């Protein structure tokens, strides 16, 4: 009985000790991290980033918040949210930089005051030279645009003239300009090599219906068009009206970015041939992981290229289930 009482006492002491240690650890690790974006809450792509962020926050037991803009693309509002977050004195910040100069002063001030700031998804076009942020987690947008153009045109007949329509989804926003700029660079290089290759850029908008309409209107007015490159996934909305125009599958090659159900459907139908998965889940998970490591162990931030993986129709079956899970 005495032993039992002693053992029970030991157990209780151990449990109490562990609880206290856990509580101390939970207290110690109760960091507050905030991620900010310039887009509105209705941006599907960012929901996958949020999923990654939520999972990382659960894994590392930290308090996280993702601040969407009330108004999509309102950069002043985004800057205001950033300033408010810095003033709150959070333990770490992840943000996009969609304008090279707008955020420089605020981010430098945050870093100087000991708040680590990493960028995700969209970075300053000058990279670390243009902003005080510690690291960038995302896709090399310009390079990805280059790869899409290259990957889309690789099978096309170089002895025949080709005309490529470039869909600039959001003129003036660096993510779209960079991607289309990269695609344009490849096309210009290919043309310089002697291929009769022309291209034209339109404001294609970022709405499935509107983008689809604009692409189809362009194609029917310019019947030499042989390929379409979009800055996002919205170009997939053109599949339906291209069929209405009597354009057969594979007649016009289309490629762009990201993974959504309609894009995969159009791949299966033969109207979309290529997309780049930039793995937004990682763009939500890795910033939290890095901020945690910086705060807890004093480790350095590091750049991470989350993807230039080219997805083709043959890959649809293998990625479809992950798209359904909201992680790709």
């Amino acid at each position, binding site marked *: 009985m005495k032993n039992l009482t002693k053992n029970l006492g030991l157990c209780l002491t151990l449990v109490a000790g562990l609880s206290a240690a856990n509580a101390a650890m939970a207290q110690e690790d109760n960091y507050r991290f905030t991620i900010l974006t310039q887009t509105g809450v209705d941006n599907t792509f960012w929901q996958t980033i949020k999923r990654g962020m939520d999972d990382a926050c659960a894994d590392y037991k930290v308090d996280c918040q993702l601040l969407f803009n009330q108004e999509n693309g309102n950069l002043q509002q985004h800057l205001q949210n950033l300033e408010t977050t810095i003033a709150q004195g959070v333990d770490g910040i992840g943000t996009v930089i969609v304008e090279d100069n707008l955020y420089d002063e605020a981010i430098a001030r945050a870093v100087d005051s000991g708040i680590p700031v990493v960028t995700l998804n969209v970075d300053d076009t000058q990279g670390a030279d243009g902003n005080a942020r510690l690291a960038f987690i995302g896709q090399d947008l310009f390079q990805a645009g280059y790869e899409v153009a290259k990957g889309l045109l690789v099978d096309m007949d170089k002895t025949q003239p080709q005309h490529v329509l470039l869909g600039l989804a959001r*003129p003036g926003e660096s993510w779209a300009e960079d991607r289309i700029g990269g695609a344009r660079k490849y096309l210009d290089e290919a043309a310089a090599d002697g291929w009769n290759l022309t291209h034209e850029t339109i404001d294609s908008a970022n709405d499935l219906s509107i983008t*689809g309409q604009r692409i189809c209107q362009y194609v029917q007015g310019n019947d030499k068009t042989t390929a379409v490159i979009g800055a996002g996934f919205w170009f997939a909305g053109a599949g339906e009206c291209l069929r209405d125009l009597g354009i057969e599958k594979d007649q016009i090659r289309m490629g762009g970015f990201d993974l959504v159900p309609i894009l995969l459907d159009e791949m299966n139908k033969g109207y979309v041939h290529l997309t780049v998965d930039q793995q937004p889940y990682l763009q939500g998970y890795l910033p939290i992981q890095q901020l945690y490591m910086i705060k807890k162990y004093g480790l350095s931030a590091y750049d991470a290229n989350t993807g230039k993986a080219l997805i083709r129709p043959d890959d649809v079956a293998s990625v479809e289930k992950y798209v359904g899970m909201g992680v790709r």
Partner: protein
Amino acid sequence: MRFSEILRSKPEASAFLMLAVMTLLFTFLSPAFLTYNNFQIVLQPIPEIALVAIGVTILMISGEFDLSVGSVFALSPMIMVLALGAGMPLVLAMLLGLCAAIAVALINAAITLRLGLPSFIATLGTLFMARSIAIVAAGGFPPAFPRDLDLWWIVGKVDLLRVSVFWLLAIGILLGIVLRKFDFGSWIFATGGNRQAARDMGINTARVKTICFILCSSLAGFAGMIQTFRIKAMVPTMGTGFELTAIAAAVIGGAALTGGIGSVTGAVIGALLIAFIENIIILMRIDANWFRFAVGAMIVIAVAINKLTRDWAGISKQVEDDND
């Protein structure tokens, strides 16, 4: 009836004149404009834009605004697609989606008419709320669109057109008749023209406006469903900014921002004109960075010419009266 009198008495007449002039001008500017293939594409989204514009026009005639139509345009089909995914039959799922639209309309009406807030502000609030509900309902991700639905009766192809054009015609003719031939139509004009006078005539103006809110929202929800069926996809961002396009179409079509003036035909013409303007700018291969400037400038020119034409018609009438 003299030409100037037609322009003055029918708000849509000058818009129709504009449409005719623009069509001729655009045909001259691009040989690809007046072609079968081009019209096949341009006409596809017209029922969607025009149905929303008709609802907004009727509500504007009654003296109110609805900025939430862009979000209802996404909310109704989102509810419908989720219901379809849960195994509900198509028609029931559509009705459920329309119920969501009506719920938003009743909130708009309650805030505007009971609390006395301007509808511009009330519906700005529900614009955000409805969009948020659409996102939350889908968990932030676009739901899979059912691939095995028979949608011919709503968006099937009939040569140049889609069946949705006939839905637009049926709804447009019905509402046009209601506006012009039924007492309820007169009540709408009276309510928007002079609310106090309408009340004095015994018209229940609050009920008239509530019905107009419901009509406007329901048409936006139905139009959103048509677009979902047409593109066979549902994303939560659908219809973003659509409210401004619909108001622009209504104004181009002759509806007065102050209420009491407008027509169903005008709304359809306004929607056509906006679609034609965007189309010609694409066909003319305007640089991407100038695209929005060009669309905006063309819309301002269209509305200005519309107003000047009507002003001219009014002056002509004045001169005639003075001569008499």
